[in-house]
């Protein structure tokens, strides 16, 4: 009884084969049905996320949030959806009709694609491909494409600026993200997410806390959420790439953004917090789903906490932070992790022992301490430069005698 999903799938398979369908066709039908169920499940959670977002931001800002419709305002997201559905659908003059309509679909669909590889439980997962970590990076790049398409096709300068900013941000933050993703891959000896979860008898967060932190920061940047939301900065470029979108087309962008945040949280939980691991998850697989979503919602809350606590970064500071700080740090981290791993565990797939965890954690602490010392020295030099003698602009005194002589 612990695994209703596979039980229903097996029952349906027997039913369809009993009806006279070929096994190959049955597999295709069941796969299509699985995709449909998964996408619907995630989208329904997405509606709930609207409520979570509004309620939590209200608490951060010392307000009550939606509390009129239903208990705790739980029916509010339904009202939001109805409002979005009945708004007028406008395509601006001069917009590229096809690309303009394709962009919101891309924005939501690419987020849904990511759920294909996230393992929900030991037996419940979409596809256990052995390159799942790279797959997540690839799908993230497609999502960026949706934003660029929206920005370009809107025929609006603000939207185009938003698209430009997205490209700069995405290209810079993808570099430390991909590098740091190698750390769990090294520790688990595999790029498959199920294998990574399987080898987390100790959560990788305790083996590689800096890597986890860098992954969280770069993910937030890829999400385009505050403090990295320069692609839709309200005070500078109105709403950035989705300025011209109305009604449900805007709704798709909004839903995509919220769901992307939860997806990133789920990926983070899978990579660093043990995914579906928890008490009795091996015996009762359905419990794994509860654990995964529990961890994912905690990280989602952390992302919101960051969003509503930090001001927006200036673009040059943001890019400098990625290229001058995160990228070198992640490179050092990957090299140190790989060397230590090679010395302690060799090339085989030995299980992770307790002294190994301690040594990896110690290495992370040493790197963190060194980073803090270097940053402090840098800040000291920078302060000295700012506090020092400033060049004062002076006008050159005109030489009156010469001027008179010329006349």
């Amino acid at each position, binding site marked *: 009884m612990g695994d209703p999903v596979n039980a229903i799938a097996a029952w349906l398979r027997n039913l369809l084969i009993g009806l006279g369908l070929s096994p190959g066709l049955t597999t295709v039908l069941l796969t299509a049905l699985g995709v449909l169920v998964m996408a619907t499940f995630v989208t329904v959670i997405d509606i709930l996320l609207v409520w979570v977002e509004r309620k939590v931001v209200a608490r951060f800002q010392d307000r009550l949030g939606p509390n009129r419709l239903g208990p705790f305002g739980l029916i509010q997201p339904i009202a939001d959806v109805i409002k979005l559905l009945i708004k007028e659908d406008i395509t601006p003059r001069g917009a590229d009709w096809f690309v303009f309509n394709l962009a919101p679909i891309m924005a939501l669909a690419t987020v849904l694609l990511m759920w294909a590889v996230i393992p929900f439980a030991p037996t419940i997962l979409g596809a256990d491909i*052995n390159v799942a970590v790279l*797959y997540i*990076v690839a799908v993230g790049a*497609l999502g960026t*494409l949706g934003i660029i398409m929206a920005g370009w096709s809107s025929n609006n300068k603000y939207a185009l600026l938003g698209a430009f900013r997205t490209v700069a941000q995405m*290209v810079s933050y993808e570099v430390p993200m991909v590098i740091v993703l190698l750390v769990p891959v090294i520790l688990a000896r595999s790029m498959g997410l199920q294998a990574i979860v399987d080898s987390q008898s100790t959560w990788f967060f305790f083996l590689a806390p800096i890597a986890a932190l860098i992954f969280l920061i770069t993910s937030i940047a890829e999400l385009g959420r505050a403090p990295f939301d320069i692609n839709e900065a309200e005070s500078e470029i109105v709403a950035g790439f989705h300025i011209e979108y109305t009604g449900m087309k805007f709704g798709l962008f909004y839903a995509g953004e919220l769901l992307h945040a939860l997806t990133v949280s789920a990926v983070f939980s899978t990579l660093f917090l043990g995914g579906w691991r928890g008490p009795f998850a091996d015996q009762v697989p359905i419990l794994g789903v509860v654990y995964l979503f529990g961890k994912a919602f905690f990280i989602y809350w952390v992302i919101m906490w960051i969003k509503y606590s930090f001001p927006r970064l200036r673009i040059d500071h943001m890019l400098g932070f990625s290229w001058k700080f995160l990228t070198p740090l992640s490179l050092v981290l990957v090299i140190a992790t790989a060397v230590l791993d090679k010395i302690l565990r060799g090339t085989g797939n030995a299980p992770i022992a307790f002294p190994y965890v301690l040594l990896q954690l110690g290495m992370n602490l040493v790197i963190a301490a060194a980073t803090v010392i270097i940053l402090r020295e840098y800040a000291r030099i920078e302060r000295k430069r700012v506090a020092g003698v400033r060049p004062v602009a002076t006008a050159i005194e005109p030489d009156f005698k010469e001027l008179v002589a010329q006349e």
Partner: protein
Amino acid sequence: MSVIQLIFLITAVITLGAAIMVVAARNLVHAALWLILTLFGVAVMFGLLSAPFFAVVQVVIYIGAISILMIFAIMLTRRGLLDSGSQFNKGWWVAGLLSLLSFTALVWMLSTWEGFHTPLPELSRDTDFVAALGAQLVNPGGYVLPFEVASILLLAALIGAVVVAWEKKA
């Protein structure tokens, strides 16, 4: 016809159609988007050939990096470099003839190859191709030399980009 063959045929038609649209589209941004569809079709082909690593790398590098930079560059130009002139010149039939000839020659050469008619061996699902690929890339008897040469080339390109973009202080 098996399901895999059906998927292959659909993907092939979409990939070829999109490839034609890349050169036929008048709007450069549209051409770039069609190019992305073509590259995605190639990625699906890799997936059908049980090479998921190449499929994913195809998307990461060609769509995620190269195409997006191309679109970025095109967006910086005025009105997407709309071209209203004729898309053919006087020598179009020569080019068509040459393309047809080289395509026929390629097909003929492939058909004389012994591996052309042998069906592909079934790969077991448990083989870790990524690990095997990685081991071969750093194996002295394998591909370590080309791998290192390629990395030095990329490093040179990286340094070159920094030098080009370096702000000269007067």
